[in-house]
């Protein structure tokens, strides 16, 4: 799947229903095969007011949608309107390595992390980071569906390089096991920690989560 995710912060005083209608309308344009627009939970970090996520069969389908007056062009106009949108963090990416645990979780809490690897010494380090990030889903039992992807085009606060998506039965799986498991703090966090010599991820992150109804990660049935 080819994916587009935008973390949208509404302008102060914006008519939210108008904004939501515009986003939902663009998600119905030709080429979109799966989409989600949901308000973020409280306590997200640089996470915006909405997670808007869309999927296309391939990059060509995305490019056609982007050129469509009812699709990408309409949304570009909305995002450029300061009376509606204060900030949009955006990432376009081919879905990367993914995993799913048995049970077919299709409803719960969706979390995505926008990050920028901007201090990597070489490609081998980035590949190791990719692989270790994928393994979080294997080790941490509350992560039911997961995917780590490299970004093709980005805009917003940073040149985002990676998107790390997970789905949980509920938000406690993120705030609990995900944060407490030693694979996180004792192993993979060294890439994010300026005190560690493997540090290579910009400390400015977008950590955001919302409800989902219909997986955005598991293979489309």
């Amino acid at each position: 799947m080819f994916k587009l995710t935008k973390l949208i912060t509404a302008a102060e005083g914006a008519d939210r229903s108008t904004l939501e209608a515009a986003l939902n309308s663009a998600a119905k344009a030709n080429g979109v095969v799966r989409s989600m627009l949901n308000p973020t939970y409280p306590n997200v970090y640089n996470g915006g007011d909405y997670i808007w996520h869309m999927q296309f069969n391939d990059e060509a389908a995305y490019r056609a949608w982007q050129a469509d007056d009812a699709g990408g062009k309409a949304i570009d106009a909305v995002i450029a309107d300061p009376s509606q949108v204060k900030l949009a963090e955006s990432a376009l990416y081919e879905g990367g390595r993914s995993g799913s645990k048995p049970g077919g979780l299709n409803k719960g809490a969706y979390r995505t992390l926008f990050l920028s690897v901007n201090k990597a010494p070489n490609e081998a380090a980035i590949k190791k980071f990719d692989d270790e990030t994928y393994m979080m889903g294997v080790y941490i039992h509350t992560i039911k569906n997961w995917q780590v992807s490299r970004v093709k085009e980005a805009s917003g606060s940073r040149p985002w390089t990676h998107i790390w998506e997970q789905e949980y039965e509920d938000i406690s799986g993120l705030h609990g096991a995900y944060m407490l498991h030693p694979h996180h703090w004792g192993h993979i966090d060294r890439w994010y920690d300026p005190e560690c010599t493997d540090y290579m991820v910009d400390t400015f992150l977008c950590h955001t989560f919302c409800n989902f109804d219909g997986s955005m990660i598991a293979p489309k049935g």
Partner: protein
Amino acid sequence: MSQVEHKETIYIQDQITAKPGKAKEVLAAYMERYAPAAKEERGMTLVSRLITPPMWLNDQDDQGNTLFITWSVQGAPAWWNMSFHGRRNPKVAEFWQSIAPLIEKRHRCFLSDIADVESLCNV
């Protein structure tokens, strides 16, 4: 965060290989400019300061000592508290930059007693 009790001791170990003859200076800088905030602001407890080889290698040598400085915190939430405070305090990054000319290499790792692995992973 989980409401469970976090009884496991987590160790934070800095392995610092000094340039020849610089280990004393590295240790002094660490204890004077890093350790106080680690204890008072980040909740870290100093466990041990070890050195290999157990003598001060001087600047006529072709290698320097390696220091193993180990701290502890109790449980994963305390680990995150320690880490977040470090990231928010620019003096931490400045300290590591300041001693870079004195060291050949360094590595930080996180450890636990093997007996605690099962409970640490049971979250």
